[in-house]
């Protein structure tokens, strides 16, 4: 069995081979691990990996907006870290996601669009405020990354946005 995950835009491949004795052989990159599942409850498992004990909590959820599955893992006791992986998307999907880079502005935080100061076709100067996002009593101004023209306005006042969602596209004057 093969699983592909992404973490900070890097893809990781995990290969898992069930063994006759009920354990697994896991391969991540060049490393091989002998994995025994000592105890498994929904969202919680005790593992012995190459002789070392680990206690993991897991949860996963599919994003309504993007359809991407997010996997959350917390290792307690030994490593004390939380991780979030996403199921790796096909190359085509990823390309679509990044094609709008350059003058495109993404939401730095989740929130509500409380004010939109520009319209499509407007000429804007670098640093000019375009819209204001608000979440949890905090406001942030989204400003123009360069002098140019607003080619696309993807949100309107009152919209709720996710972190990373595209808000505006600005193209440089030619």
């Amino acid at each position, binding site marked *: 069995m093969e699983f592909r995950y992404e973490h*900070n835009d890097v893809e990781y491949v995990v290969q898992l081979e069930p063994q006759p004795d009920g354990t697994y052989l896991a391969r991540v990159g060049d490393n091989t691990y002998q994995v025994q599942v000592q105890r498994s409850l929904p969202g919680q498992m005790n593992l012995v990996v190459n002789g070392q004990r680990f206690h993991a909590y897991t949860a996963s959820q599919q994003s309504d907006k993007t359809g991407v599955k997010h996997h959350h893992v*917390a290792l307690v006791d030994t490593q004390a870290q939380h991780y979030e992986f996403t199921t790796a998307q096909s190359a085509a999907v990823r390309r679509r996601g990044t094609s709008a880079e350059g003058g495109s502005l993404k939401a730095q*935080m989740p929130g509500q669009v409380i004010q939109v100061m520009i319209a499509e076709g407007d000429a804007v100067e670098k640093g000019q405020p375009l819209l204001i996002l608000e979440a949890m009593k905090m406001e942030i101004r989204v400003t123009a990354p360069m002098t140019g023209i607003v080619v696309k306005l993807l949100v309107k006042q009152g919209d709720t946005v996710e972190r990373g969602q595209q808000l505006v596209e600005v193209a440089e004057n030619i």
Partner: protein
Amino acid sequence: MFKKILIANRGEIAARIIRACHERGIRTVAVYSDVDADALHVRLADEAVLIGAAAPSQSYLRGETIIEAAKKNNCQAIHPGFGFLSEAPGFARAVRDAGLVFIGPPAEAIEKMGVKTEARSLMEQAGVPVVPGFQSSSASDDDFQRAADHIGYPVMVKAAGGGGGKGIRIVHEPATLLESIAAARREALNAFNDPTVFLEKYIENGRHIEVQVLADSYGHVVHLYERECSIQRRHQKIIEETPSPFLSDEIRDEMGRAAVNAAQAVQYVNAGTVEFIVDENEKFYFLEMNTRLQVEHPITELVTGIDIVNAQLNIAAGAELPFQQEDIFQRGHAIECRIYAEDPANNFLPAVGPVLRTVEPAGPGIRVDAGVVTGDQVTIHYDPMIAKLIVVAENRINAIRKMEWALAQYVILGLTTNLAFLKDVMQHPVFMLGEATTHFIDEFLTPWVPPDTEPSEIALIAATLSEIAQAASILPAATPAEGDVYSPWSRMDGFRM
């Protein structure tokens, strides 16, 4: 004692107050906005009343609606918690006029402490040290210059009508004083329509230390010692501890007495906190009084053994304080970490999302005051503080160790939190030495980078095993009753209703 009270708040503090009431056999009524219909405080309370839409101005700030709900549901008192209506004198007065008890100070005390310049002169009269300053509406440039020389540089030019950091200038040398005053006046005129400015000494490397007080309705006031709150980001506290690692016993007692004087000067009743700024030479100055319960009250509870919310209920019901100042002392060392739904690697900007799983640490000396648990949602509408982790141990170093351990045990899956950042603070040498000032995070932990940018391969393996386990459990979970391991129908040992 009251039979039923309404809690005009949400989140962890509403849960804290509801539990304190239930301990005493007092029934509770929660209020909620439409997005909070399934929130923890609503689930905990005996009754709950919908008071409006998500925006606080449409719900948790609607004093009249809340008072109406209290009367309609036969409540005898209202606890405001902190934030929202807790420091609105108009609300405190309206509660009293409606024949109900406001669990907090009298409206008059809130009012006096609310106007900063009035509070400043009241404190001076009461012999409470205030930051050296100069104010006069008719002063000439020469007067300002002489005053600044007298106070000693650096000085702050502040707008009298001010707030929100507007109209403030820090002046390091006489040469720039007059132009700074002119600039501050322009800004103050624009922002507050009032160009009046005053001078105040700028306390460099200041520490934020506050003193908890309790006062009954018979003029008896005690203090419960200090809390050190210097670890802040965006002028918001994130870690508090008591005792302060900085104060000598002598100054600690002096600050306690000053806080009691401050409370007496405004005929204070119930729980309150007097905030001071303390300079490098242990000189302390009054900043303001928070006329309400404080977020960080649990650390004081853990070292003094006094349940402050319970004391609030007793005082509001007309009881006398059951102790004298000499009965109160600090035992051990307590630390609180505020758990925020935010991304410390991205300027501490708020994060939202479903809480897919929480596992709270437990053990001797560990307390969690949480506002969300597994299955709850953190939305964009309210404060990003979702829980408080509080520990107490025999001494400071053991408390730090315990906090590190407890942070490592705390599982919150589904949204980004500051857990890893808090752990970094605990392990920072400046914090461990007790030398952190209010600039600590800006100076030492900005920008912050998470400890490991590469994921643990063990965590990746755990993710795959969890996917396999989930896939395997889909068949037996075909009917809800069978899939629910907590359902009484899946118990093997028999049960009665």
